[in-house]
């Protein structure tokens, strides 16, 4: 059987390439080629440009590299704690803002979205200053007598992770909230009305209507946030400088260190980067499968 016929004689075909040509060429040079090159590089090792084939040596090295394990563990901690907290928070905010009875909701929405306007570097630096040992946060908590001694946010491995989690939640909750809010606005208000008449309180409405209706978008934002966590760099670099003793080092930050802080090993850095590719591919597959099932 003949394949589907697409519109157009040869001349419009040429016009089509004229329009997309620049983008295709640029993408091939600065995206497709580097992806392949980086994959090949991941089987090589050496300092600087003196590179030789190393087979699976880099992957073996990954399994013994304590710093890499630490970076992976850090990423995992962010994913387990930060992503769920943020999504629950964003969902709650969105459902409150969606209530027609709430006054000033435009004002609240703008305020809560505002953190998304900052650059990652700027807000990271801001958080570093607020959470210094004698800084604003400790100062306030001591004043209110919530704590008796300042919390070593930047000096203690546990609290440093908490700080990164707080910072990420501040920066991204409003962003995710916007996705939920626009999805909520597509739900018929009459569904909520019917539930109210049946005696469902706000909490059971949230659990029984909001969450199931928003399932696809919740999945989408979870996957996007997890991918974001895997690619974390600016925060790790500017809030905690990866410290203390690598307790907040992200995978991308470690790649940067392997490339530029020590003697550059392009091959090994490429191998680490493919670990991120591997996880992102799995996540995308999960997203694809589940959203496919929903549509079926």
């Amino acid at each position, binding site marked *: 059987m003949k394949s589907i016929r*697409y519109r157009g004689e040869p001349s*419009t*075909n040429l016009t*089509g390439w*004229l*329009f*997309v040509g*620049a*983008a*295709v060429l*640029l*993408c091939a040079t*600065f*995206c497709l080629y*580097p*992806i392949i*090159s*980086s994959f090949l*590089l991941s089987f090589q090792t050496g300092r600087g*440009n003196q590179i030789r084939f190393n087979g699976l040596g880099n992957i073996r090295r990954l399994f013994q590299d304590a710093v890499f394990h630490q970076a992976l563990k850090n990423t995992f901690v962010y994913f387990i704690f930060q992503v769920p907290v943020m999504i629950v928070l964003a969902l709650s*905010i969105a459902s*409150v*803002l969606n*209530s027609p009875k*709430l006054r000033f909701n435009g004002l*609240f929405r703008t*305020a*809560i979205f*505002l953190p*998304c*306007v*900052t*650059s*990652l*570097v*700027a807000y990271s*630096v*801001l958080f570093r*200053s607020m959470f210094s040992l*004698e*800084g604003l946060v400790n*100062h*306030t908590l001591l004043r209110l007598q919530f704590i008796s001694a300042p919390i070593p946010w930047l000096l203690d491995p546990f609290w440093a992770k908490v700080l990164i989690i707080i910072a990420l939640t*501040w920066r991204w909750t409003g962003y995710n909230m*916007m*996705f939920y809010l*626009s999805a909520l606005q597509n739900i018929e208000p009459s569904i909520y009305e019917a539930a109210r008449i049946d005696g469902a309180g706000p909490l059971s409405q949230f659990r029984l209507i909001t969450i199931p209706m928003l399932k696809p978008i919740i999945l989408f934002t979870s996957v996007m946030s997890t991918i974001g966590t895997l*690619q974390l*760099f*600016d925060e790790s*670099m*500017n809030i905690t400088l990866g410290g203390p003793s690598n307790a907040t080092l992200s*995978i*991308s930050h470690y790649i*940067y260190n392997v*490339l530029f802080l020590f003697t550059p090993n*392009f091959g090994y*850095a490429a191998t680490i*980067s*493919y670990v991120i590719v591997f996880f992102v591919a799995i996540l995308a597959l999960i997203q694809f499968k589940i959203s496919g099932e929903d549509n079926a």
Partner: protein
Amino acid sequence: MPKNSYSSSRAQSAISGSLAYIFISVVAFFSVFPFLWMIIGATNTSKDISMGKLSFGTALIDNFRSLGSVVNLGLVFRNTTIVTLVGTFCTLLVASMAGYGFEMYRSKARERTYSLMLLTMMVPFAAVMIPLFRMFAKARMLNSFAAIILPAVASIFVIFFFRQSTRTFSKELIQASRVDGLGEIQAFFLIYLPSMKSTFAAAAIIVFMSYWNNFLWPLIILQTNNKKLLTLAISSLNSSYTPDYGVIMLVIILATTPTLAIFFSMQRQFVEGMLGSVK
């Protein structure tokens, strides 16, 4: 229905209503507070800031002076503006033409190309930056603005954004322009572009933000002070052994003001661009 149950549900909804206000106000307060802190901080000395002083001080002029002595502000702003404006212009041109081309002139080969390009969107920048760095080193283009802009011009996300938006564009307009004797490229610039202003605005904002706030790639590529960008300047002030917080707050304000101004003047397009969707 018994009367008391009705009034108790009224009371319940009043309580949940006020809880909603308390909750949303607390969240809004914490969202906005760091902005106030940054403005207050810019008027205080570094010592006062690190002690958590919460009132306006008198050190604003001094902070400006010390900022001027550690950072060549004019140069850094000029560099950042050049990269952002040139980059935004190139990206919008290339990506809008591609999004339009993929949607309006369909062929099997182009659909395959498009799918492949979408697939590369999944690959994180960390995996691409190593070969990119070596490529620009080989071409002797390290420390150049071209090296910052070129890899970002064919942004797949923006191409995707334009293709999605083009679906809502009425193709009859282009057919009518053909009847009127307009060429294909002319039709793009004279018919499509003016009728998609909102899409272009949303895309321009998101692209502007990505260049203005870019950090990792410039950090790798740019090596000398005369090419320094704002994010790099902030980061290096921050990682010095004795960071001057007053100066840092001031430079953060300067870096954030343009994006804040764009946000407040074009909120709808801003959010559309960020969410990557036009309804």
